[in-house]
């Protein structure tokens, strides 16, 4: 089930479009961030003062890119996942087979989670690639920092996905309206 959801996510035009934009954004800012990091790093090597954080390579735009496009990606991946199935009637067909409603939602969540993992892993690998191209070989600690940053990013993206998925579950219209508003205000914040 999650296999299909994962495949659906990563082959959807919406996902690919946002992902490409995000990737370009990240690549550009990592290119800049890596330069800044290398500068600081050389200062560190010469003077022995505080070691610059590896996370710097993601630069301002990298973080900003994740904050905006990442949030949009998370929301877009989730907001019509169930309503779309209702609209096309496939939910009814699906429910006529022996499957629990929870299983459907879990499958969707897991599929989206895997797709988001892919997003994070690809952007992290891209960042490492840029770094190595610039002639910096990250230490084990640096890799750990990058991985940690990746996990936080994943949690951030998945939170937005969950916010989008959540309001599709309760049956009552009013409740749905409130939670959509809540999700939207979260996004604005």
């Amino acid at each position: 089930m999650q296999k299909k959801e994962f495949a659906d996510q990563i082959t959807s035009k919406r996902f690919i479009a946002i992902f490409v934009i995000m990737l370009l954004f990240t690549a550009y800012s990592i290119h800049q961030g890596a330069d800044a990091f290398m500068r600081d790093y050389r200062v560190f090597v010469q003077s022995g003062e505080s070691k610059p954080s590896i996370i710097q390579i993601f630069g301002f735009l990298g973080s900003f890119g994740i904050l905006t496009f990442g949030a949009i990606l998370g929301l877009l991946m989730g907001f019509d996942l169930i309503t779309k199935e209702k609209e096309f009637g496939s939910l009814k067909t699906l429910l006529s087979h022996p499957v629990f409603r929870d299983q459907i939602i879990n499958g969707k969540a897991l599929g989206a989670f895997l797709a988001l993992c892919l997003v994070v892993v690809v952007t992290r690998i891209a960042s490492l690639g840029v770094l190595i191209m610039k002639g910096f070989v990250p230490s084990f600690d640096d890799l750990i920092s990058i991985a940690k940053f990746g996990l936080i990013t994943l949690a951030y993206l998945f939170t937005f996905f969950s916010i989008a998925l959540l309001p599709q579950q309760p049956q009552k219209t009013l409740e749905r309206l409130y939670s959509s508003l809540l999700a939207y205000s979260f996004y604005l914040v």
Partner: protein
Amino acid sequence: MIEAENLTKMYNNFKALDGLNLKIEENEVFGFLGPNGAGKTTTISLMMGMLQPTSGSIKIDGIDVAKNPLEIKKMCGYLPENVGFYDNLTAKQNLLYFAEFYKMSKDEATKIIDDLLELVGIAHTADKKVGEYSKGMKQRLGLAQALLNDPKVIFLDEPTSGLDPQGAADFRKIIRNLKKEGKTIFFSPHILSEVREVCETVGIINRGKLIAKGRIEDFKQNVVIVVETDPPLDPSILETFGNVKVKDSQAIVEAERDCRIEISKTLTKNGYTIKELHLTEPSLEEIYLNLVGGGE
């Protein structure tokens, strides 16, 4: 096989089903008739365990639907009205996805699916995306989907809507073959004439209440016998058979049953030559309109 007791379903303040009682035997082909919004689809959804009844219970093969919806779904097949699929997947991929919920290996599923697609006549477009399918083709795929788990009980909600005449005939043939295989079929027909061709028993629902149920033969009310003789008939002779009306040179007898032989004997005994003697039965449509119209 299917037993519904005192089934009631409320949607907010609207009573979609109002104390419905229904019993369907094993291997019966049951036609479920009723005007739009009478509660047909609601009944089927309740029987498939997709909705919870407000009160009352349904048992299929002795299993309580509300308590064990998953068991019911394992042994039932359902073709919903306006059946929907994943448009981004091919027909085959769609069925393979649904097959994941049953205990069957991928090879087994592939074989079953190939056979089913052949049966419903879309094997040649099995690898085409469902988004490119016409309504009729989706309907055919819907039937294949409903038969995926070799169900004991099959619910068909307007299965022939959107089908071309050939497709509709194919569907009726498939339904008759399923009956031969011993399946129980719950069928909500799109057109009334299909009922006579496919179903053995019929139930008519109106405003959430079952207003009639029985074998099709039992529904036939009074028959009408048209008689024309030479010389013109004296209607009083036939009054023992039923109500007689004279129209032009014909006498029209409303009898409780087909009594053409007795009429013929009486006429011959009285020296009449019979020019015409035929029976007209009310069509199912007339009966239906009578019953449903009577409820309003």
